[in-house]
């Protein structure tokens, strides 16, 4: 009440605060980097950054408490609620289609493995973290329409070194991997259904700004496509007194510009994305497009139309970078905006010099029993590299660690964390630190045995094989050559793109692997059931008969109707005459018709005859005595 009616001084204070802008604590920037790659491809990287700073957030970050959001402005409420409820401190989600080829393309701004990848740092809470993680994964899969709900304990790990917090974190927290969970789903597909909810998290929606360029058609026909979401607490200032929350929504594409008949690599915004850029997002503080013109000394290689508003240079010598900067707020006055790059020469495909570190990973071995995962680390630099190698292998590949490492190998490596798998519960976690000498390739292989799965554990289309998630390799490179981003702490893409001399951290992901496990014939259980039932039924019939029935001779009833008697007579006559014709010596006279209740299993003729004799005797007795039947039974006893 006081604040509403309050004193004029309070009113002035409020007004002053309002005039500064309610949005002062919420900031949104949109940036796009276009980078022609040496292989002739074009890499475009969109980055939308929303930052939110308030005293409460800063306090929550520093005290490792959950965020409590009540009044959302630019920050998406849908994500905010997830973060708030599930004690999230830092969240990184990526959905990727295709493989980033480090050898040809260098390092991307944000590296992501094929499929889905999620890693989250939680606040220390009293809740059961495994349950929280399960709930979070389900909430996220609803939010982003991906099948993240397939993440369970069999593909979740907590690596020690590879995924340290990227945001504000003290050492005690960053070093305690029990607060973090990492999972990857290599089989996950990315499509429009993920893009639409991702766009919905942006303050300008899909209406205006650079996001309007993201038309699904060209996006999903690209060679590489990666959608990601990164939430982290970051610093507002250098000494980090005030923390803020930073949400980066990034989208990376690698396309091959349509080199039509002429064979030039010409590209333009319009033919890359097929939609015109008409409006910039009015809510964005910064809305810029950068074109990497490092290789384009004095516009010899290609010319840019229109000319950039500004050219920024950073770095030195080998790691030098020049960026042409376009401010879309300035450029977009009325007409649609496009950037055209016109090449003066045909593109010459040739050898591309590889970056300092590249890794390849493959499966060796044959047959359906054993095999091994082999990784080749290549260091092309002049200095030795120490790297962290993280491998998460599902439980159905049973690793043999004792034969994987020779004593010689162990001299320059050690296993930092190893969690052995438990069937149907835990995956393998293998995290090793190893050294790769200058200009050498080091090979490491992990032998495994394939396990047999239960019938219902096979996925649909089991013969396709099982995907093994990508391995993660993290290292600190001595120089920023080929590295897109060497300062991860910056909030904007522009800040990240400035090359600073010195060491730079890279984390790259290898290829995913496809392993075929022995697959059973899935109709087998039904066949087995049917076959077993039939066999049991077939066996049961005779057994039942043998045990319950006795073979007896029985005289046919003489009481017959007139008609049947007549027919029998005719039949008998006919039969007799035919037998006479055959000349067969038939001993059983027709006048004594006896039917044998025969069991097919009774092949024993002697027994049969015995029984027949008995019967005959009895019959004679019957004839003689004509006693009541009860007597007979007594006799039998």
């Amino acid at each position, binding site marked *: *009440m006081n604040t509403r009616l309050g004193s004029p001084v309070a009113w002035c204070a409020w007004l002053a605060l309002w005039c500064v802008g309610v949005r002062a604590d919420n900031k949104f920037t949109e940036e796009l980097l276009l980078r022609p790659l040496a292989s002739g491809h074009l890499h475009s990287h969109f980055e939308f950054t929303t930052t939110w700073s308030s005293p409460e957030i800063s306090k929550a970050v520093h005290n490792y408490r959950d965020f409590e959001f009540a*009044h*959302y*402005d630019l920050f998406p409420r849908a994500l905010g609620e997830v973060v708030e409820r599930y004690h999230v401190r830092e969240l990184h989600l990526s959905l990727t289609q295709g493989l980033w080829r480090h050898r040809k393309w260098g390092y991307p701004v944000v590296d992501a493995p094929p499929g889905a990848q999620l890693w989250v740092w939680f606040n220390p809470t009293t809740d059961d973290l495994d349950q929280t993680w399960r709930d979070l994964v389900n909430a996220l899969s*609803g939010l982003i329409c991906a099948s993240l709900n397939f993440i369970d304990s069999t593909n979740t790990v907590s690596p020690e070194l590879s995924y340290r917090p990227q945001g504000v974190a003290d050492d005690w927290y960053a070093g305690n991997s029990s607060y973090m969970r990492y999972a990857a789903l290599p089989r996950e597909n990315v499509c429009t259904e993920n893009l639409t909810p991702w766009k919905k998290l942006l303050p300008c*929606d899909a*209406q205006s700004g650079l996001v309007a360029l993201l038309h699904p058609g060209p996006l999903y026909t690209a060679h590489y496509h990666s959608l990601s979401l990164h939430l982290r607490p970051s610093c507002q200032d250098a000494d980090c007194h005030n923390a803020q929350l930073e949400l980066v929504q990034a989208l990376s594409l690698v396309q091959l510009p349509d080199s039509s008949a002429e064979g030039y690599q010409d590209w333009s915004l319009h033919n890359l994305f097929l939609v015109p850029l008409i409006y910039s997002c009015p*809510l964005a503080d910064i809305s810029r497009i950068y074109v990497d013109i490092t290789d384009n000394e004095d516009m010899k290689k290609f010319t840019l139309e229109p000319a950039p508003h500004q050219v920024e240079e950073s770095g030195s010598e080998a790691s030098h970078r020049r960026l042409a900067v376009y401010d879309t707020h300035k450029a977009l006055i009325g007409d649609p905006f496009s950037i055209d790059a016109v090449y003066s020469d045909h593109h010459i495909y040739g050898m591309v010099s590889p970056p300092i570190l590249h890794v390849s990973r493959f499966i060796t071995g044959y047959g359906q029993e054993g095999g091994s995962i082999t990784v080749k680390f290549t260091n092309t630099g002049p200095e030795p590299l120490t790297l962290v190698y993280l491998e998460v292998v599902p439980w159905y590949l049973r690793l043999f660690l004792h034969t994987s490492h020779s004593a010689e190998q162990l001299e320059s490596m050690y296993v930092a964390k190893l969690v052995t798998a438990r069937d149907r519960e835990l995956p393998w976690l293998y995290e090793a630190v190893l050294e790769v000498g200058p200009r050498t390739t080091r090979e490491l292989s992990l032998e495994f045995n394939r396990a047999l799965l239960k019938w219902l554990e096979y996925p649909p289309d089991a013969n396709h094989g099982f995907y093994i998630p990508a391995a993660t390799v993290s290292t600190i490179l001595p120089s920023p050559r080929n590295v897109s981003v060497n300062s991860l702490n910056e909030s904007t893409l522009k800040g990240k793109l400035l090359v600073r001399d010195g060491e730079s951290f890279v984390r790259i992901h290898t290829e995913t692997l496809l392993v075929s496990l022995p697959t059973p014939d899935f109709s087998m259980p039904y066949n087995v059931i049917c076959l077993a039932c039939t066999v049991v039924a077939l066996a049961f019939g005779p057994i039942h008969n043998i045990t*319950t029935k006795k073979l007896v001779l029985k005289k046919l009833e003489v009481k017959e109707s007139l008609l049947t008697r007549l027919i029998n007579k005719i039949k008998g006559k006919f039969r007799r005459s035919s037998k006479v014709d055959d000349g067969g010596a038939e001993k059983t006279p027709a006048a004594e018709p006896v039917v044998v209740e025969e069991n097919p299993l009774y092949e024993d003729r002697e027994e049969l005859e015995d029984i027949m004799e008995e019967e005959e005797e009895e019959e004679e007795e019957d004839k003689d005595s004509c006693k009541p039947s009860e007597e007979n039974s007594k006799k039998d006893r």
Partner: protein
Amino acid sequence: MSKEEDNAKNPEGAWAAAGFAVVLLVVGVPVWWFTTTVYRAQLPYSTIETLSSQLRHHTVGVTIIGSLPPSFQEDLVKSLGSMQSVKFLMSQRQPTKEERQALHSGKTPDELDRHMSQLVRVAAGMLAVVVLPEAMEIKEVVVGTDRLIYIKPTADLQVVSSVVRNMVMDPLASRYAFTNRPLHHKKEAMRQVPTEPGYDVTLTLMVPEPHRTKIEWDARAAVTDYLSPVVKQLENVSKLTVRSQVLYMTGLSVSPQWSEAHKHYALPENQLPLTINAIEAKLGSFVWTRPSLHFVVYIPREKQLPLHIHAADGSPLPSNSFLVPRWGGVMIHNVPTAAPNVSLPRPVTLDSHWIMSTVLTHLHRLLPIPSLREIEGVETLAMKDSSMLTAWQLDGLARARVSAYLSNIRITLQSLCELVGEISNMVISDEVGGWVWGAVEEWEECGRATREGRLQDATLYCTRSFTQADAAFFHPSMLALLYFPDNQKYAIYVPLFLPVSIPVLLSLKMVFGLCRKSSTKEKSE
């Protein structure tokens, strides 16, 4: 020779047949039963069936302070007795000395109420009628902020009676709660939000043109000033979680017409249902399952300013807002049109008071909170801060919610039993069974508390019962086997059981023969 004689001659066979039958019965049938049966915990079916017949009514104690003509009091009792869902316990006492002093000293109704409510303590769920001296110059019936009603001895009996009824429970809510079928045909009955222990209240500011208007509105201050006190008051009845958000670049998909007569754009009432469809996709929560109430403040586009909602008869609505039943409310906040040469985006300040009072009005109608606005000749004293609720309003709301809970829980439990009876494949785990038992127990406790007039206990029991009944009804484990087709069961067991059981059944004849024989033999001996 007869068949019996056959059997008689083969007693071992008969014994063997009996053996087969016994093995089939003792081993086969249990194996089949335990491998195909659906697990079901024991449920209190009979108790649940009798829930509807149990007596449900609220008890409200009414104390009359002062003396009234005896006939008046009798008539009042009679008139109130006709209220189906509430039983009144009347009592009477004379005012104490202090009270009499207070009655005479108070000049204005407010002053009187302030003095009296300090002196007379009325327990939650009860009411007191204070008879005023005739000489006082105030309206005949005055309703205080606590649980007090002030009447003059000359007051109209019908007015007093209907005031008491309306204070006790919203008439619509009581009708809603005590009929067995939900009133789907009643437009007003559909307005009320489903009764649940908690709600998400979301304030959404929609700014379709952020490049033209820069909205300046401190949602945090507005919420703490206007909504938080009410939320705090309602805490015991239901938990409201208030959030606010701003949606940019999204507008209502409406096409208003320029109305020459009123010099503004007119949004006809029949277009309103279409408006929220477009924004619904951006309002949902992925985290909470409790029902949400959305209050949307819409800033019209520049070319549609000013925008007013028109009623069916073509006249503009004074509130310029509309209520969406069970969903929330939408209000259109017009901003002044921009001067021709102003630099964009231009700052616009919103009227917090107007927004929040509209939100509160909508909230009152959605919950619903009882009011006496429709009865003439009554003065209702409001809290000093107009947004706050009075004690009797909270009581009335709690009472209506208890009633709604009682009937909702009953319907939930009975539907559960019905479903379980109808669908044989439904699994009932021990956990679900436990919830159902708990819900029934708490329901009965709640009913007892209601009958005894313990309103707070009743709310507590009912909330717990509701949570359990809901958890049981919506538990995913119940659906685990729902789509397991019966023919698969047969497909597996028929090839085995059919060829085995036919000979066994046929041979049973033999066993019976043997039995008969032995019995007759015993007789003959």
